[in-house]
C-alpha cells in the first residue's frame, strides 16, 4: 500500500473511532447519573464528533472522489468502518463507559501528542486542537476510574467487571499493524504507543486499587480492518437511518 492509501485508511480509523464513541455518548443523553455528568458527557461527545468531522474532511479532500465527510460517516457499512473495537462496545452502565473511555483516552492522548509532530501539517494542526480536548478527557476519565475504583464496594465490583469485559479489546490500543508502522516510519503517523499506554494504565490501576490483567493479545476481531463485533451493525443502522432512507435529501 502506498503512503497515500495508507494515510486515508489511518485517518478513517481515527475518524470512525471518534464518531462511534460520540454516538455512544448520544445514547447517554437524558440517562446520565447526574446533571453535571449530562453536561460533561455531552461535552466529550461533542469534542469527539468535532474531531471526527475534521478527520473526515481531510479524508474527503485526499480522496477527492466527490464524497464529503457526511458520506463517509453516514453511508459506509459495517465492513467499511475502521473504528477500534472498544469504541463500538455498548455503553453499559457508568462503569463500562468509564473504563471504555479511560482506555481510549489514554491511547488518544498519546496518539494526538505524537501527531502534533506529524510531518503532515494538516494532521499536526488537527491533532494540536484535539489534544487540548483529549487532555481534559483523560483527566476526567482518570478521576472517575479512581472514584469508582476506590468509592464503594459496589462501584469497585462494577468497575472490575467492566474492565474484565473490555480488556481483550485493548490489544488494538497497544498493537500496531503494517499501515500504522509504515506511516510512523514516514513521520506521518503516531506509531506504536503500547509501552506508554501500559505504563499509564498500570499507574492508574494501582491508584484505583484494580488488578491489572495480563496484556491482551490479538484475536480474530480486527476493527482497524473492518472485522467488527456484532454491536456495530446496530449502531450504524440507527445512526445512518435518515441518510439511508432519504438518499437525495439535504438536511
Amino acid at each position: 500500500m502506498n503512503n497515500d492509501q495508507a494515510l486515508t485508511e489511518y485517518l478513517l480509523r481515527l475518524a470512525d473511532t471518534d464518531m462511534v464513541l460520540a454516538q455512544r455518548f448520544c445514547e447517554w443523553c437524558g440517562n446520565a447519573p447526574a446533571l453535571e455528568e449530562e453536561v460533561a458527557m455531552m461535552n466529550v461527545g461533542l469534542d469527539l464528533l468535532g474531531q471526527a468531522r475534521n478527520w473526515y474532511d481531510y479524508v474527503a479532500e485526499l480522496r477527492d472522489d466527490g464524497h464529503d465527510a457526511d458520506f463517509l460517516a453516514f453511508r459506509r457499512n459495517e465492513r467499511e468502518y475502521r473504528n477500534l473495537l472498544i469504541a463500538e462496545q455498548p455503553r453499559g452502565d457508568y462503569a463500562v463507559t468509564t473504563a471504555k473511555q479511560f482506555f481510549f483516552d489514554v491511547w488518544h492522548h498519546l496518539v494526538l501528542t505524537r501527531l502534533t509532530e506529524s510531518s503532515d501539517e494538516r494532521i499536526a494542526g488537527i491533532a494540536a486542537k484535539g489534544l487540548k480536548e483529549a487532555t481534559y478527557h483523560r483527566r476526567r476519565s482518570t478521576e472517575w476510574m479512581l472514584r469508582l475504583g476506590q468509592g464503594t464496594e459496589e462501584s469497585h465490583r462494577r468497575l472490575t467487571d467492566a474492565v474484565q469485559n473490555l480488556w481483550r479489546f485493548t490489544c488494538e490500543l497497544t498493537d500496531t499493524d503494517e499501515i500504522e508502522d509504515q506511516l510512523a516510519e514516514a513521520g506521518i503517523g503516531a506509531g506504536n504507543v503500547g509501552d506508554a499506554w501500559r505504563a499509564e494504565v498500570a499507574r492508574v490501576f494501582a491508584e484505583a486499587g484494580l488488578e491489572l490483567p495480563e496484556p491482551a493479545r490479538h484475536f480474530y476481531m480486527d476493527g482497524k480492518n473492518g472485522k467488527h463485533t456484532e454491536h456495530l451493525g446496530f449502531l450504524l443502522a440507527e445512526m445512518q437511518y435518515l441518510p439511508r432512507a432519504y438518499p437525495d435529501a439535504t438536511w
Partner: protein
Amino acid sequence: MSPEERHFQEKVDAEVRIEPKNWMPDGYRKTLIRQISQHAHSEIVGMLPEGNWLSRAPSLKRKLQLMAKIQDEAGHGLYLYSAMETLGADRDEEIEKLHRGEVKFSSIFTYPTLTWADMGAIGWLVDGAAIVNQVPLQRCSYGPYSRAMIRVCKEESFHQRQGYEILLTMMREGTDEQKEMVQDAINRFWWPSLMMFGPSDENSPNSAQSMAWKIKRHGNDELRQRFLDQTVPQLEFLGCTAPDPDLKWNEETGHYDFGEIQWQEFFDVLKGHSPCGVERIQQRKKAIDDGQWVRDAAVAYADKQKANAA
C-alpha cells in the same frame, strides 16, 4: 402590610433586585421556588424529546448542533437549580417531587418527536415561545433568577435561529418528502406552542400577585399575541401554513387573529393524560435511580480523600 413587606414592595417597585439574603415574603419565596423549579425541570425534561433524535441526526453538522443545544439545556437546568437553591430549596428534593408527579414541567415536552423536522419545529416554535416568555424574566425582581435568564435567553435565541434554519433548509433545498415533514411538524407543534403561554389571564389566578411582585410583567394573552405576531411572517417566509383556518391579519388591531385554543387538551395534559409525559418522567427517574451507585461512589471517594488529607 408589615414594615418589612412595605420595604420589600418599595424595592420591587423601584426596580431594585431582591437578593438571596434580603428579606422577602413567604409567598414570594414559594412562588419563585415553584416557578424556577418548574423552569429547571422543563429544561431537563426538555432534553428528552430532542435526545430522541440525537442518535439519528442526519448529518455531522446537525448532530453537532443538536448535541450543543442539548448540552446548553442541561446547563440551563444547572443555573436554574442554583438560582432556586438560593431560595433555600433543595435540588434533589425538588427533583424527587417531579418524579413523584407532585410538580409539573412544561406540557410541551410531553409531545413526542416523530420526525427529524420536529427538531426544527421545537427550536423555532417551542424555543421561540419560551423566549417570548423569558425575555421579561430578565428583569424579574429576583436577582439570581433575572441573571440566569439573561444567560438563558441569549442561548435560546441562538437555538431558535438554528431551529428555523433546519426547517428553512428542508423547505428550500429538500425533497417533497422533507417538505411534507416540515408541514407535518408545524401542524403538530403549532397549537401546543400557543398553549405554552398558559390559559387566558382571567383563568390564571396567580397572575395579579406575580405582576405586583414583578416576577411576571405581562399577561399570558399579551405574550401569546406577541409570539404569534412575530411567528406568522416567519411561517409565511418558510412557505408553510398553520393548522388554523381562522388565522389572519387584522388591519384594525395591527395583530393576527387566531382560532380558539382547545384548552381541554392542555388541561388533560396537566392532569397527566398526556401523550408521553409518563415516559418522560420514567426515563428521568430511571436515570437518577440507576445513577445512585455512581453518586454514592463519588461521595465515598471524596470522603476518603478528605480523611486522608486530614
